[in-house]
């Protein structure tokens, strides 16, 4: 039975199959190119989420669960961590992924609840501006950080971490 019976495989004559692509444009919610962006955003939420579990759990472990926990956190502690490029890179990745993931999540929520076009636009503008400021600020802080601050006479400030003594003198 290799001969195909075209009559048999066709649906009812004259009736278009559902979703066959011929939808009146006025019923379309958005242009098709937006679909690709939403698909990448959906995938990004899952990939970044999986990575963030490790990034954030280790962050909380090193800062709260070991050593003196919450009491150890001060300027010298931050200086000690960022003297190591591994932690610089760790915090940088965490900053970018968490901010992009969180901002995209907030975008979804704004789209869900803000019904007026003008409200949506206003809220999203504030969101993107805030996200850009925080990402740039956080990145600059990691890479312009100076652990061994000295006063005018060249002496170390009292808050400097102990490893600075070998660096300055």
């Amino acid at each position, binding site marked *: 039975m290799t001969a195909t019976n075209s009559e048999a495989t066709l649906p009812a004559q004259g009736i278009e199959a559902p979703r066959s692509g011929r939808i009146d444009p006025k019923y379309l919610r958005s242009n098709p190119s937006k679909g690709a962006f939403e698909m990448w955003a959906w995938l990004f939420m899952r990939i970044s989420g999986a990575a963030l579990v490790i990034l954030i759990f280790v962050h909380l472990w090193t800062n709260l669960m070991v050593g003196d926990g*919450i009491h150890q956190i001060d300027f010298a502690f931050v200086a000690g961590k960022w003297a190591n490029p591994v932690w610089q890179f760790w915090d940088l990745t965490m900053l970018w992924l968490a901010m992009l993931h969180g901002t995209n999540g907030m975008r979804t929520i704004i789209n869900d609840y803000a019904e007026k076009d003008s409200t949506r636009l206003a809220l999203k503008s504030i969101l993107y501006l805030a996200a850009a400021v925080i990402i740039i600020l956080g990145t600059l802080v990691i890479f312009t950080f100076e652990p061994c601050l000295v006063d005018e006479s060249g002496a170390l400030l009292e*808050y400097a971490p102990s490893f600075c003594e070998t660096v300055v003198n």
Partner: protein
Amino acid sequence: MTQTKSTPGGRGTLYKGREGMWSWVGHRITGVGIFFFLLVHVLDTSLVRVSPEAYNAVIGAYKHPIMILGEIGLVGAIVFHAFNGLRIILVDFWKQGTRYHRQMLWAVLILWLVTMVAFSVRHLMIFFEGWEGF
């Protein structure tokens, strides 16, 4: 799941009516909470570029007893969002995911409870050991 509405005592659908919806509400609320925390957290960390005194003064607030409770709340939100997020990923990518989504939610809640008991005990012990009073 072919049912389209959640009848009383019925099984609902993947999203509407029962566990699926409550876990979604919880995921959304924790996500928003963490987002706003992160905005503040990057700002307070950026004080290391202002001066050591400024950073130490502000970060000192994290050591106040009320903030200790706040940290437990924050970590509770993160751990729920993280475990439930992994469950969402499994529902979407694992072949059996939709079939076991309800069982996985129970696993999320149990793992959350275990993690939070361990975290809270450790965090409070460290806090009381080094606490110098108000």
